[in-house]
């Protein structure tokens, strides 16, 4: 059997086992050990546990639970709602301000949490009801939150970037910095669209009212006094402290990325204790428990994926697949387009973590060969994976929205998300034309590579 035939068989078996509904972690392990048994020397089976351990015993990977803890500390406490209300109080006068407030709140939260669904549920549980109360159409409200939530993996810290940094052997600090520019770009695009859409819906509501129809909540005036506005400020302060504290620690040369993860988690817990009085074991255990559940699930997938890619490499599948791609002699940009398309297709079924782990050994060599900056590509790939989080059939964020607002029909959610998908495509194109949107900031702060 040729390497590529074997590769096709490997892919096909993976597909079958994955679609059987077997948990991803076990599916990766089962496929890998199965192929080890049939196609590799018996001694390979003796090394599987050590291989998994070596993969997991990396302090970079093990910062993942700590980043998750930091996000959960904020997301599962009143802090998330406060952040949202404060921004809303200040932004409500701007047309479409409520939409902008939601995008901003998502971005700020994303800058503290490492995953997208976390961001989505933290801001969405307050944001969606509020927007609907103010007359926003349900689809639009859901779309903002679903899309805003994806910023969780683009703005640092980001769990998928941690995995990418390890796979592509790039500096995590640099990759984190590179995510900020595109993150801001997406915030601007999302906010701009929010204004446009809110104005359109406002005009429609006005039209209906003037023709004697019912008065939409859009047309109600909302007012906050200055003292109300000032009162909200201290509630945002903890976030600013947390955000700046962690950034200074990381980029000021005080701490390594993993130390930053520990520092950030501890700081978040400390802020909760001081400001919200959340410190008793009883109050903390839901936060810690949910963090542990999520990170256990992720780390098991990560550990087993090592077996999966080890077999792929041993049987020369990744190498020959990569060589095959290189041998197609695609032009630089066609190659990029093909690879991104592949990432999108994977995004139909798999969460970003698995996409990176399973595709990195195949896609990184051709990209390196074609002369792409792998920091830049990491960012582009992240934006594309963000799209996977909100497009059907298994956009994780869509599930989160269905949990927060079960009464919004799935069709509305999908249509509400659609414009944001287009905006992400725009962002990818802009990144290709102006790569410095991503690489500018790290080059400025850490020196050109």
């Amino acid at each position, binding site marked *: 059997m040729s390497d590529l035939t074997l590769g096709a068989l490997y892919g096909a078996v993976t597909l079958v086992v994955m*679609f059987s509904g077997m*948990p991803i972690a076990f599916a990766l392990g089962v496929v890998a050990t199965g192929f080890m048994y049939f196609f590799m020397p018996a001694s390979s089976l003796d090394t*599987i546990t050590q291989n998994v351990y070596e993969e*997991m015993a990396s302090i970079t990977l093990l910062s993942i639970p700590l980043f998750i803890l930091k996000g959960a500390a904020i997301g599962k406490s009143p802090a998330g709602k406060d952040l949202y209300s404060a921004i809303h109080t200040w932004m409500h006068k701007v047309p479409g301000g409520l939409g902008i407030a939601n995008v901003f709140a998502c971005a700020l939260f994303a800058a503290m949490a490492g995953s997208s669904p976390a961001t989505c549920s933290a801001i969405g549980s307050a944001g969606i009801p509020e927007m609907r109360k103010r007359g926003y159409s349900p689809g639009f409200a859901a779309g903002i939150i679903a899309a805003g939530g994806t910023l969780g993996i683009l703005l640092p810290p980001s769990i998928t970037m941690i995995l990418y940094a390890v796979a592509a052997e790039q500096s995590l600090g640099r990759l984190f910095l590179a995510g900020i520019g595109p993150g801001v770009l997406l915030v601007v695009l999302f906010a701009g669209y929010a204004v446009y859409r809110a104005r359109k819906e406002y005009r429609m509501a006005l039209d209906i009212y003037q023709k004697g129809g019912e008065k939409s909540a859009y047309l109600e005036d909302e007012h906050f006094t200055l003292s109300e506005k000032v009162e909200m400020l201290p509630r945002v302060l903890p976030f600013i402290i947390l955000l700046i504290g962690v950034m200074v620690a990381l980029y000021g040369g005080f701490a390594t990325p993993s130390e930053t993860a*520990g520092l950030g988690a501890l700081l978040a817990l400390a802020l909760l204790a001081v400001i919200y009085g959340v410190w008793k074991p009883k109050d903390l255990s839901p936060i810690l428990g949910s963090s542990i559940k999520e990170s256990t699930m992720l780390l*098991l997938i990560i550990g087993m994926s090592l077996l999966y890619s080890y077999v792929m490499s041993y049987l020369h599948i990744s190498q020959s697949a990569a060589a095959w791609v290189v041998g197609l002699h695609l032009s630089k940009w066609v190659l990029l387009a093909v690879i991104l398309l592949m990432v999108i297709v994977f995004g139909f079924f798999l969460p970003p973590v698995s996409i990176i782990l399973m595709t990195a050994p195949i896609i990184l060599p051709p990209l390196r060969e074609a002369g792409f900056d792998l920091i830049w590509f990491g960012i582009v790939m992240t934006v594309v994976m963000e799209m996977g989080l909100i497009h059907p059939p298994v956009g994780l964020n869509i599930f989160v929205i269905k949990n927060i607002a079960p009464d919004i029909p799935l069709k509305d959610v999908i249509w509400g998300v659609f414009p944001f998908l287009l905006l992400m495509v725009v962002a990818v194109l802009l990144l290709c034309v102006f790569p410095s949107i991503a690489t500018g900031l790290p080059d400025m702060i850490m020196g050109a590579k």
Partner: protein
Amino acid sequence: MDKLNRFLMMLSMVALVLTSLVLTYSVVSRYFFHAPTDWQDEASVFMLVGVTFFCTAYVQYHRGHIGIEALAGLLPRRVNAVRLFFVDLVSMLFCAFFTWKSWLLFHEAWVDGQTTSSTFAPPLWIPYSMMAAGMTLLTLQILLQTLARLTNKPEHAA
């Protein structure tokens, strides 16, 4: 099983907070006392490896290991039941195999007195034993769930 899972969960919660403390301490110690620590990374790795494996059975108990459930809605009920049974059975066999190999790895590290090759050089049987113990629990958990499917009992009664 349930009680043991919950106890390990509590232990893991403590370990997670402790890890944040350790990593923060290493920054503080380096910058304020000019005394860099060389054990923080490995201590954290060991604790988090422990957290992961000790809680994986708990996560399985709540069916928290995600999979692709796209087919669930398309298949008839009977076929689905058979599919789920096989998924559990194969998962269980894999985990049992992994558990067995973990204990062998632990045994080897224990007998040879293996350590990590760092400056701190802690013994490797510590994380290996946590991995082996955690995988043993996971295997038992899936076994219970498989048996529950076989006897058609509601899962959480098992």
